[in-house]
């Protein structure tokens, strides 16, 4: 079934009776060529690109809950490629290019909106750092414009520019940055993978990984044993538990990150805006809610809900930056479980077990990476070779200290990112 304007009109005329489920609900087969553990955005994208780019169609995605029920449905939907360090910048650049072709490729409306992202700065030193970041982005082939106060005032007139404590000196504008409808990304990849023969198996929790003589043989699940020569672990905040089934310990600590949404309002915030002197960033959803978030609560947690101090900090930062937000009512807040690495950059690599691969450590930036991560992880699983833009995401970089990617420059240690 192909989506089109014509199809929407036709269904409208015939009582919307022609729409069918867009992926099957198959029982697991006893054996596959490859298994993906985790049916989030990254896992579904991996399955899609394994099928599309590498012709591997006898594969399955195993999801313990339902598609779109994990972090891919809990994030704040920002899509950007404004990274600084070699290793990160080419990866996110590649990922953003995949975003730009995603809707046509998947024939699925993910509501990707390149409304522009503006990171504000509030001091001379911060301006220098952002100018340097902008140059790195331009060198990578992406777009960046350094705005002065007047330039920001023109597009974001509602900010408190002359705040006594944190006056706005300008902003780094990334026009190709923006947002997308997060669930739709999961659904689009699920549909695309299913159309190519991938089995998407929901309510199927992996309970063990079978390894014999250092070679992966398959997995145990709540729906029986499934054999496979290749297994990919893509489970975000749960990476520690699944890796433990393979006898591994990871350089990952899981933390909670909170987000917030207000009641639906008329269009008021046209871009993605981030505050430079506190943890606060915001965009407005197509439904009208102001979607905003801050930083981690900064203690390890699997609760998927946060504590009041960070809520207070985020609200204070919001009021500092855009006092008008005080009139909006917060509808709800929630938390997601972030797989934090010591240097704040992800991992896409083989493991010491033959045939077992891992894609994790996306910290609080996994959503924008969905297509790039899926593409690169599929490449690694299919060919055994690292995909060039993701070759820096080695698992062993912490042990040998070579190639650490500490984007924030705070040090490669747990609890600093």
């Amino acid at each position, binding site marked *: 079934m192909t989506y089109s304007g014509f199809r929407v009109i036709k269904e409208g005329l015939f009582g919307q009776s022609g729409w069918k489920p867009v992926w099957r609900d198959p029982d697991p087969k006893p054996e596959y060529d490859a298994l993906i553990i985790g049916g989030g955005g990254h896992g579904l994208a991996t399955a899609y690109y394994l099928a599309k780019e590498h012709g591997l169609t006898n594969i399955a995605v195993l999801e313990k809950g339902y598609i779109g029920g994990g972090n891919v449905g809990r994030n704040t939907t920002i899509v950007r490629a404004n990274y600084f360090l070699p290793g990160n910048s080419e990866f996110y650049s590649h990922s953003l290019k995949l975003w730009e072709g995603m809707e046509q490729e998947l024939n699925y409306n993910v509501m990707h909106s390149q409304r522009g992202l503006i990171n504000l700065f509030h001091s001379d030193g911060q301006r220098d750092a952002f100018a340097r970041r902008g140059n790195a982005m331009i060198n990578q082939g992406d777009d960046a414009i350094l705005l002065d106060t007047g330039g920001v005032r023109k597009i974001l007139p509602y900010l408190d520019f002359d705040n006594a404590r944190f006056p706005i000196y300008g902003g780094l504008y990334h026009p190709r940055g923006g947002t997308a409808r997060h669930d739709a990304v999961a659904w689009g990849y699920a549909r695309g993978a299913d159309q190519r023969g991938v089995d998407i198996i929901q309510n199927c929790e992996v309970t063990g990984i079978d390894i014999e003589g250092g070679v992966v043989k398959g997995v145990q699940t709540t729906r029986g044993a499934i054999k496979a020569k290749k297994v990919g672990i893509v489970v975000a905040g749960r990476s520690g*538990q699944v890796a433990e089934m393979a006898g591994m310990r990871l350089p990952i600590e899981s933390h909670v990150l909170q987000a917030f949404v207000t009641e639906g309002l008329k269009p008021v915030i046209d871009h993605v805006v981030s505050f430079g002197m506190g943890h606060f960033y915001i965009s407005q959803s197509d439904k009208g809610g102001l979607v905003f978030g801050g930083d981690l609560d900064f203690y390890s947690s699997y609760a998927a809900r946060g504590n009041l101090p960070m809520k207070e900090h985020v609200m204070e930062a919001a009021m500092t930056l855009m006092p008008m937000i005080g009139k909006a009512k917060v509808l709800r807040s929630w938390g997601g479980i972030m797989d934090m690495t010591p240097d704040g950059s992800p991992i896409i690599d083989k493991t010491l077990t033959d045939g077992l691969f891992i894609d994790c450590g996306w910290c609080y930036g996994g959503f924008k990476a969905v297509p790039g991560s899926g593409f690169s992880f599929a490449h690694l699983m299919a060919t055994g070779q690292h995909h060039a833009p993701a070759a820096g995401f080695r698992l062993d970089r912490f042990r040998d200290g070579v190639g650490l990617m500490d984007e924030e420059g705070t040090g490669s240690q747990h609890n600093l990112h």
Partner: protein
Amino acid sequence: MRITCPNCGERDRREFYYQGDAVALARPASDAGPQAWDDYLHNRENPAGDTQDLWFHEAGCGAWIVVSRNTVTHAIDSTTLAATVKR
């Protein structure tokens, strides 16, 4: 979240700085080898459930505290001064 400092009593979480897993108390010998140091610095059990971690009573008495708590419920079982903990 409120944390009971063994010195000061129950205090707001904001008075404390979270360091991370209490593995930090088990520093390997300087010649223990790269794997031991990698485990100490980076690799974590990262449990969904009971854990022990180190908190610093930054805005209080300045004590390092081992907190036994649950990462799923955020319930705190017990707190001990790190100085008295031998691992």
